């Protein structure tokens, strides 16, 4: 499954700009940035409800393929701008964390 495949699912909305497509290695769920920092696999699709500037920093450093902000948690414009600057792909969904990750996992 590639990141672009997420775009074709109506439950997910792309918040950031057009991107260079990339393979997703697996879904990864975690809200504690301290844990995500050590455990998020490179290339994974990181599903979380933690939406702040540090989420973006952790995403960059762990080299995840994209972030999915679940549960309809808002992701403000300043964060979207920062994500675009750093070439981080961010989706939002109203689905719970597990359901979102299960959809990504099923596509792999």
């Amino acid at each position, binding site marked *: 499954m590639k990141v672009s495949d997420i775009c074709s699912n109506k439950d997910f909305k792309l918040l950031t700009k057009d991107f260079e497509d990339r393979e997703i290695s697996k879904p990864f769920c975690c809200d504690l940035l301290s844990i995500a920092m050590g455990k998020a696999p490179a290339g994974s699709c990181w599903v979380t409800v933690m939406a702040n500037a540090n989420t973006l920093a*952790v995403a960059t450093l762990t080299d995840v393929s994209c972030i999915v902000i679940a549960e309809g948690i808002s992701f403000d414009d300043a964060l979207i701008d920062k994500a675009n600057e750093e070439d981080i792909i961010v989706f939002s969904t109203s689905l719970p964390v597990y359901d979102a990750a299960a959809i990504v996992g099923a596509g792999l």
Partner: protein
Amino acid sequence: MPDVMELVYEVSNEDFTRAGEASSDVKRKLKKLGIPSDVIRRVSIALYEGEINMVIHAYGGKVTVTISEEAITMVLADKGPGIPDIDKAMEAGYSTAPDNVRNLGFGAGMGLPNMKKNSDEMNIETQIGVGTTVTMTVKL
């Protein structure tokens, strides 16, 4: 590339949105130098955890990264309160981080263990009321 490259960063106090600037910049530079991606990931994670620690516990500080042909060495020096019990601080899950930090998703007591896990060597020098210097090396 010169034999040794040195990068120096100031980590500001209590500014969580800026924490990570040093590690992001180091990551970009290592990528340009063609360093293997697993090494870059380990350096980035170890350094970011260190930066976050400096913001949470030590009112900021100074990061010096030295890149040679053999290794990447990171020295994180602060003038914070010092670590009273290093063994305890190294325990996964032990944390003295305040609630505002935990609300941001940090402070789970994984910082120092993550730093150790991602570096080949880690040394902590600390003095109560004077400061702490953490030195981490990732071999190339």
